[in-house]
Every structure is written in C-alpha cells, then in structure tokens.
C-alpha cells in the first residue's frame, strides 16, 4: 500500500477526490508518522489529533454526500506556533505564553478551516520568531531530519522539518527576514514569502509588523502555490492587506512545470553570492543557472549596491518594532504573571518580573537593542537612518527589475550548521539571513526551492525574487527549475537523498 505521508499535497488531494483514500486515513497516517519520528525531530510543540481527525471525518462525510469541496479539502497541515488557533494552545515558542489558549483564529487559520484542511498541530520555532536555528525556542530546538546534530533553520525550523520528515505535506510559516526561506533551504524543502500584504497578518503574533508575512512550506513548488491560493486574499481586519484580487498561483506553477522559460530574464544579484558563501552552495547555484539557461531563460547579472547595508538596517528596524510589539506581554491580561520576589507588588514591578522570567535571552537582547535604537538621542542615527536604507534597497530592486523579470541568489550562504556553532555569537547567527532580508525590507516576494546537495551532502536552497504583487513569477520560474532538476536527477527530488529517520516501531532505543 502507498505510504500516504510520502505523497505531495497535490497527489494526496487527487486521491482524496477520486475516493481512493479518505481524509481520516491520510490524517491518521501523518499523526502516526509524527508519533514515530517526532521525538528526536521535535518539529511539533502541540499535537491536535482529536480535532484534526474530527475535521477529516467531517470532510469525508461531506465528500461522500456529494458536496463540492475545496481542492485541498482533507489534506492535513501543520501551523507554526506564532499563528493563533482558537481553542488550541499557542505559545510562539515562549514561556511567557506557556499554555495560552487564544480566543480566536488568525484569518489564515479560518481559511484553512473553511477549506477543510485538518490542522495536525503547532510547530516549533525560535521564541517570537527571533532566530535562524530554533535554538532560541523555550521548548528546546527542532532537529534537522537530514542530520539530527544540525539546525533545521529558523525561525520556522519546526514547519520546515515537519514537511521534510513527512510529518505533514504542508505547513504554514512566517517570514520576517527569512524564517520561511532559510529553513526551507537547509531542510531541502520549498518555502515562499509572499508579497507583503498578500496573506493577512491578522492573528499572527507580531514580531516586526512592517516585515512579517505568512506563507507556505511544502515539498514541491506546486504544493506551495496551492496553499498560497488558500491563505491569500484581502482581509478587512488587516489594514496592510492588499485589496486587489490575486491570480491563481497553482496555475502559474503548472505553467512553469512545462520547463519552458523562453524569453524570461533572470537576474543574478552580484551582491548575494561570492565571499562568505560556501563553495558547495555556489556550485549548486551555478548548476541551477545552467538549467535555467537550458530552459530558455536569459541570465544576466544585476547589481544592488545598497544590499551591503541591508543586514544593519534590518537589525535596527526589527528590534525597534519588536520592542514595541512585545510591550503587550505585561502580565496583566493574558500569559504569564510573575510577582517580584521582594518589595512592593506594583503593576510596573510585576511587568518587569514577568518579562524577566518569561522572555529568553535572544528576546531580551532584541527588545533592549530596539529600546536603545528608539531612545532619545539615537532615533535619527539608528532607526531613521535604517528607514532611509530601506528606500535605497527598494530603489536597487526597482532598477534590477528593469533589467530582469526575476532575481536569483543562493537562499542562505551555508548549509545547515551544527547546534551551538553560532548561538553564542549573535552577529554570526544574523549573517544567515543576509540573502533573504532585502526582500522583507522591500516587501517583495521570495521563494526557496532545493537546488541539490552541497559537497557536504546537505541540501542547498535556490532563491527566486519577484517584484511586489508578481508572486506568480516565483511559481512559474520555481516550477520550471524544479522540473529541470527532477529530470536531471532521474525523477527523484532532493529529499530522496535524505537518510531515513529511525522510527519508534523499528527501534527500541528511540523509546527512551
């Protein structure tokens, strides 16, 4: 019998439609897989078996009754724990929200429920999405299915690892500086950061409001496109939600899957490559450029000189916005409340004691950095200057998109690194996001897909960037490259090279 967890979301949806399998079978298969491998991987913080199976049974009954269902109805999904889910614990990876049960659903979760997609559980992440490795989760790190001694990327390492380990065919991530794309790169999966405003931010626990964007995680480009079609669209509850209707991204992915990119201009960003990028990453990137040329694309070089200041601007804008957004964790209305050990119990002192006990080291680091950047006397030099850099980066993108329809780069400078390698060196950790951050600063969409393996045997991510509101180009170019890479590899995707995880049923040692 087919292992239902190995199917793509599109394949599974087709089998559900034809009646070959039921959603209860598919959902149970994924819950079983989670039970078998998630001990060591730790992609999930909370499992939602009962409600997921109830949703699946409901979809099966409605399908049996002949109801016209959504294309992805019955396909299970994992949701990053920064997205609020009504009546299901949501922590954002923080002790300050330990056990918090939101009274409402995020808009994108409402859309998942409306489409009839069972929610398997909530995935692990760096606390409040601050990090590139999940080492900053208050609940322990997620491990990379390719090598359990290595990071799965971050902040959305749980969502990427869940998809890579066949614990879910699809997952929701959020991307503030690369938190969907960098985990996708280091786990050999696909991840998309849509145009800012393409997916509603209502119900996302905000990190940096002018940068945050939710998006799909999957094993194929088409699957991400299908999920983007579900969660996208205007939301009156998000004032930054784009009002205009979006085209079908699945159609764009299917058009791209023919492998023909005749006439498409692909711009290689000179500043996102070269020094600091692992040789194996560069080699994989170059090989993908050859595939794009073979597909008929015209590959040109473009320059974005202001990108050299992007990382610095990002690490001022993000902490500044985060320090403001996280002020709501005050111990008064929800979440943790800690009273000071001594002295008067005033609201101010309770707030400080609560935040001292409830926030982890990286969150404290960034809130205090943001407080500094916004404080009197420094505002113009830091936050004000960073916002000007943002303008320069937007101008660089505008000029580059005059010369090219899409821009490309490696998604991350290195493959997955080992736990502990960078956790004590904040600047080294921050450099992981050097190629993904410019898109967030400019609000443009970006996609990462696996381009192969580096010389260390670990997966490499290939990033495609498009102008704002032109997300369909990501799917077309991404699917075309995916088709060419699959053909070159004899039909096997990058994940086929990942080692099989030990499962609880075939080892007693894992039961420790």
């Amino acid at each position, binding site marked *: 019998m087919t292992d239902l967890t190995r199917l793509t979301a599109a394949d599974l949806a087709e089998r559900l439609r034809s009646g070959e399998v039921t959603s209860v079978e598919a959902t149970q298969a994924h819950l079983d897989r989670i039970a078998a491998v998630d001990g060591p991987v730790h992609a999930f913080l909370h499992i939602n078996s009962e409600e997921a199976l109830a949703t699946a049974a409901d979809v099966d009954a409605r399908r049996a009754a002949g109801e016209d269902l959504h294309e992805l109805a019955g396909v299970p999904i994992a949701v990053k724990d920064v997205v609020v889910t009504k009546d299901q614990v949501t922590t954002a990876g923080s002790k300050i929200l330990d056990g918090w049960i939101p009274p409402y659903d995020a808009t994108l979760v409402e859309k998942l429920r409306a489409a009839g997609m069972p929610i398997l559980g909530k995935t692990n992440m760096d606390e409040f999405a601050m990090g590139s490795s999940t080492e900053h989760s208050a609940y322990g790190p997620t491990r990379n299915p390719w090598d359990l001694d290595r990071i799965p990327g971050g902040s959305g390492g749980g969502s990427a690892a869940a998809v890579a380990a066949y614990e879910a065919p699809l997952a929701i991530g959020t991307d503030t500086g690369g938190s969907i794309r960098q985990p996708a790169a280091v786990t050999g999966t696909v991840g998309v950061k849509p145009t800012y405003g393409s997916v509603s931010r209502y119900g996302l626990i905000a990190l940096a409001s002018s940068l945050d964007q939710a998006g799909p995680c999957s094993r194929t480009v088409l699957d991400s496109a299908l999920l983007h079609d579900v969660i996208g669209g205007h939301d009156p509850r998000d004032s930054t939600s784009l009002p205009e209707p979006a085209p079908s991204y699945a159609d764009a992915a299917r058009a791209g899957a023919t492998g023909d990119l005749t006439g498409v201009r692909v711009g290689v960003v000179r500043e996102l490559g070269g020094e600091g990028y692992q040789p194996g990453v560069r080699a994989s990137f170059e090989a993908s450029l050859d595939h794009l040329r073979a597909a008929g694309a015209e590959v040109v070089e473009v320059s974005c000189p202001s990108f050299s200041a992007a990382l610095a601007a990002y690490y001022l804008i993000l902490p500044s916005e985060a320090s403001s957004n996280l002020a709501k964790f005050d111990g008064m*209305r929800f979440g943790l409340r800690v009273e000071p050990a001594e002295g008067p119990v005033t609201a101010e002192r309770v707030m400080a004691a609560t935040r001292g006990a409830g926030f982890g080291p990286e969150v404290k680091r960034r809130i205090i950095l943001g407080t500094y950047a916004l404080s009197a006397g420094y505002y113009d030099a830091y936050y004000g200057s960073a916002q000007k850099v943002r303008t*320069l980066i937007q101008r660089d993108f505008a000029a580059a998109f005059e010369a090219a329809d899409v821009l490309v780069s490696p998604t991350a400078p290195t493959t997955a690194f080992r736990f502990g390698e960078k956790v004590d060196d904040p600047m080294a950790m921050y450099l992981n996001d050097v190629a993904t951050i410019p898109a967030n600063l400019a609000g443009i969409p970006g996609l990462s897909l696996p381009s192969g393996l580096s010389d260390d045997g670990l997966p490499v991510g290939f990033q495609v960037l498009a102008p704002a509101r032109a997300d369909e180009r990501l799917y077309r170019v991404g699917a075309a490259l995916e088709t060419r890479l699959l053909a070159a590899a004899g039909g096997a995707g990058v994940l086929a090279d990942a080692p099989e995880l030990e499962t609880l049923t075939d080892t007693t040692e894992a039961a420790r």
Partner: protein
Amino acid sequence: MSTINADEVARLAALARIDLTPEETDRLAGDLDVIVQSVATVSEVAGDDVPATSHPIPLTNVLRDDVVGQTLPLEDILAQAPQAEDGQFAVPQILGEEQ
C-alpha cells in the same frame, strides 16, 4: 558612536520593563556593544536627500463604516487572564506607596 556598558543596559532594561540578573546585564552589554558597532554603518549610507520608508507597500488607510462590529465574548477573554474579578482584569496596584 557610543558604547554600551552595563549601566546603559540596566537603564534600557528598566525602560523596557525587564528584570535582568547582574550576569545577564554584563553579558548583554558585551553582545549589544558588538551588535551596535556592526549596525552603526547605516548612518553613513544614506544622505539627507533620501526619504525614509516606514512601510514596504504604499497603501492609503481606509476607515470602515462606524457600525458595531463583532467582538469576542468577555468570558473567553477573561478565561486566559492571570487573574479576573467581576468581569474585569484584576491587576496589581498601579502606583507605589510613595506615589
């Protein structure tokens, strides 16, 4: 550019309402000093003629009609409060004795 020492971290932590241990304060002073030196370059990149961008996609704010919308049930909100009383959040005293 200024440097960030332990006293400055303690001042910022008080502004941000985060209790820090002395060890955390010392450690953050070291970390933040490195980070601030690294990001300080932003002030040298853009001249006075470059406008600031606060928001990636230019949109005009739209106000909805002033009609009663849906709100969440009170009991659902208070169920997650650290402490509630008489249909309200129960909070510690706001001002200290000396105030």
